[in-house]
């Protein structure tokens, strides 16, 4: 039996500032760690505390990369670390996205705010899959144009016609110029569905964003005709142990850290108060 509560040491390899208070952090753990899209790790800042976070990229050269928002006490402390500092990592935890379900299907990725981070890991995995056919549609909503994460990368993929991209922002004084080929609307991300032509029966959807996003969009996707078993959302909860013991993340009797955090709408419909 290994001690799942004992972290491995990891070097903070690189900090890449992106938008305000949403930097990319990559970590090199002493022992290699596999981390699939949708799964998460716990990052420990010794003496401060720990928090769960998913990766926003495939693991490359042993590096685990996450987009981490400065949102609380521990992430605040992370923003004061420097490259070369040592943190602790536990994981990988949870059930991620089932990549094989996306194989011969169109992929519809819908993100709100920081929800783009785990979906970017999924996007990279889909793009890297040589056996995969089908479209990749990315709908991404943010508060303001300046807060769109991975904007340049997504626009580039769109221009290369690897993905079909639409942005939405809640408000903007001036809409960014996106080379005329990328749609950016003012409004909510679910409004981007209007006018989108796709075949719902052969589409797998993945949604990640704040709780308000799930309230409206998951059932809307089902109404459009995507089967509930092929609509996935990744849930955020307070996870402390991450191994299905401490009880903080439980919803409808299920440990989100262990059974999830990715669930299908079919599952979520039977989980009262999950969304």
């Amino acid at each position: 039996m290994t001690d799942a509560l004992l972290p491995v040491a990891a070097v903070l390899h690189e900090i890449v500032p992106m938008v305000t208070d949403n930097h990319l952090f990559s970590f090199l753990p002493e022992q290699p760690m596999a981390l699939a899209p949708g799964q998460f790790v716990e990052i420990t800042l010794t003496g401060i505390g720990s928090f769960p976070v998913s990766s926003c990229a495939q693991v490359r050269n042993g590096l685990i990369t996450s987009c981490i928002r400065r949102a609380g006490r521990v992430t605040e402390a992370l923003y004061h670390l420097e490259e070369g500092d040592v943190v602790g990592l536990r994981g990988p935890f949870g059930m991620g996205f089932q990549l094989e379900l996306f194989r011969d299907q169109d992929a519809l990725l819908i993100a709100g705010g920081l929800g783009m981070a785990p979906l970017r890991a999924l996007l990279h995995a889909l793009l890297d899959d040589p056996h995969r056919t089908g479209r990749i549609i990315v709908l991404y909503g943010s508060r303001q144009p300046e807060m769109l994460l991975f904007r340049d990368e997504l626009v580039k993929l769109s221009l290369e016609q690897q993905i079909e991209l639409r942005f939405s922002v809640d408000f903007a004084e001036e809409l960014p110029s996106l080379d005329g080929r990328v749609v950016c609307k003012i409004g909510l991300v679910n409004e981007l569905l209007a006018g989108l032509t796709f075949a719902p029966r052969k589409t797998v959807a993945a949604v990640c964003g704040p709780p308000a996003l799930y309230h409206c969009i998951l059932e809307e996707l089902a109404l459009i005709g995507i089967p509930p078993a092929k609509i996935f959302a990744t849930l955020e909860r307070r996870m402390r142990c991450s191994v299905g013991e401490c009880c903080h993340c439980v919803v409808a009797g299920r440990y989100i850290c262990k059974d999830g955090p990715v669930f299908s709408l079919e599952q979520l419909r039977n989980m009262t108060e999950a969304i």
Partner: protein
Amino acid sequence: MVEALLPSYHLRQSSHDTLADAITKGSTFAPQVDAEGFCRLQPLSAGDLPGQALSSFVPLKKMFLPPREKLWSFQSGQFSELEQPEPFAVVGVPLCDLQALWYLDQVFAEDLPYQKRRARSLVVAMPCEPTPDCRCDPQLMPVAGDLFLEQKCAWALSPAGDSLLRSCGAGGAEDQPLPWPTASPERRPQLTEEQLRSSADAAIWAEAAQSCLACGACSVVCPTCYCFDLLDETATDGSVTRGRLWDNCFFAEHAKVAGGHDFRPGRANRLHFRMEHKFFGFGALQGQNSCVGCGRCRRVCPVDIDFDQIAAKLGGEELS
């Protein structure tokens, strides 16, 4: 569940004495009433076994999941596990606490610190005197632990308990059911998971929430409550230890995430959550009622909230 038959042995006085010496040869704890009238699990002097079980204020769980424990330390860039726990014995616990131990064994099946303590422990149950609060049910779930000990008879509950009895000269093993106290399982409320789930907005929760102080005492004294949090402590030499400490689903931070969103706001919500956990379980134990009927939560609640009564009302019956 069919009641299990367990090997039971006759104990002559000599083998009882040998057994008592063997059990208490190391660090031994037993429920004992202190000067202030509280029954606590306290160290026991050698060779001096109690005659019967007592229900300690804080149950057996604290021996395996201490209210505060150290999980690891960090020094000079390295994380390291802490030392092995010392072996110990606990004697004089009631059978309901052994069901609770079985339940915690399932929850913490993969938890190394918990399992290390379990592997180095000897747990001995004894007959108890049921109180009006007791609602134990032998059929609820199996028991864990090592021995059930009466004056002239002993039951082996584990291979370690069995070999201990044999080595002490106990003889005449035959398979027998454990002598549970004559309790009243029929007084346990009948509540279905569906009734509880569909009751989330029922007025009964708001009523209970009006008097509930959210003190969390019911969870502290519950033998099957096991929520925990993790907390770091930094020593003056710069070393850091991560502590595991009991948490409580009545506390305001329990379901709050970074950014401030609370997934279980309000006491009504938390009362419902606790009831769901207690009667219907989480994760792999979903469907397993873990209320062993010890009555501790009823005795400790400062405002007389009785989960059995809430369950009975939700289930459409009235407890006498």
